[in-house]
């Protein structure tokens, strides 16, 4: 698999799981399982960073820090921003996939 194909596969996989991941974080918080919630936020942050989803990464980082610091009100306050960063990411996906496709085609035609 070349880099372009891999990027497309991973972006699609990440996007498909994103709603479940956010729901899992919310459920853990609703169940007052703060360490599980922090672990899930941590993983989301890492994956977002790997895929250069900068805003999503920043919001997940804020949430994780608030959860680890035990600032529960602040953590709850992070959720709307996280959700809107996730929505923005999903909206921008077609554009990102299009750019990957174009750069792959350019790379192929240059060969």
């Amino acid at each position, binding site marked *: 698999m070349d880099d372009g194909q891999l990027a497309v596969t991973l972006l699609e996989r990440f996007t498909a799981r994103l709603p479940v991941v956010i729901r899992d974080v919310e459920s853990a918080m609703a169940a007052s399982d703060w360490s599980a919630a922090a*672990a899930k936020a941590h993983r989301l942050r890492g994956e977002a960073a790997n895929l250069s989803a900068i805003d999503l990464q920043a919001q997940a980082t804020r949430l994780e820090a608030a959860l680890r610091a035990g600032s529960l009100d602040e953590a709850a306050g992070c959720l709307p921003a996280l959700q809107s960063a996730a929505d923005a990411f999903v909206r921008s996906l077609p554009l990102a996939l299009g750019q990957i496709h174009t750069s792959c085609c350019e790379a192929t035609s240059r060969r």
Partner: protein
Amino acid sequence: MRVLIVDDSPIALALLKQALAKGGHQVDAVESGEEALEWVRKGVHRLIISDWDMPGLDGLALCRKVREISTHYVYFILLTSHRGSDYIVTGLSAGADDFIVKPFNPEELLLRVHTGERIVSLESRDMVVFAMAQLAESRDRETGKHLERVRKYAQLLARRLMSVPRFAGRLDDRFVQLIYETSPLHDIGKVGIPDAILLKPGRLTSEEFAIMRTHTTLGAQMLDAALEKFPDAEFLRFARDIVACHHERFDGSGYPNGLAGEQIPLCARIVAVADVYDACTSNRVYRAAMTHEETAQIISDGSGTHFDPAIVAVFLELADEFRRICRQWADVALPARVDDAAVFTLANTAVDTLSLTAVP
């Protein structure tokens, strides 16, 4: 190199795998510390890259486990989003060798893996060289400390000789390291000497002694064959000089070739002193160990005939250190036989090391 990667995120695993495969590495990927541990027990990987934060067995705990159960050195790289010296200290204390901050840069990843590869190959090379020497030695020695002492004596002499003007430019840290690594091989050719001669309790006849002397040329031939395969392996060339020439004498009366003075490679002249010192200060079936003073007298008397006078002069200055090594590494009885598992591990390590050495 075969690398084990551990990350609970399939996305991170896929990215790591892609980057490592591009660098020509063979990759096994697992999503938990527990699965990684199963691989570690098989002892297949010399390099592990693990995420730090994982549910269950995390990267730190995995690293501690690896240090506890691995029979050979495993280079361990922790992947982390943590920055700061506290985290580095925690990681290093758990036994990690290096860190990569996420999200990683593929070029940096490959460079760090390359560093790990070099360190692992050096470590296992030294181990294999020493183990080969021990196998050869195990036939005719009752104890196993001889090689350890000889390499320490040789290292000591070489380091001190660095400050002797006559040797300036010929001796450096690399030389000292090489003599330490390869001097244990000095009698490797004894593997080719029949038991009837090697283990004979009494005095050898002149015919038998002639055969015994061939251990120098037999050993040199073994290493020459290895050098044909790996002509750039400096340590093999160095070992060959020691093996072939450590029974030459400064005045040209030694064997196998009757070389004299500077014709004898410097490393062999150094090992000659170290080997004779150890032989004299060790117990033999036919005599008790000599004292340091008696041995120093013998070596001093051999200055200019048996030994290079410059090396003897340095040896005499180092009396205290020689005494200390002799005491610290005194012989103890060896187990009756080498167990099969150890030989098997050794054979596997040897195969690994040769394949590592073959990489330019």
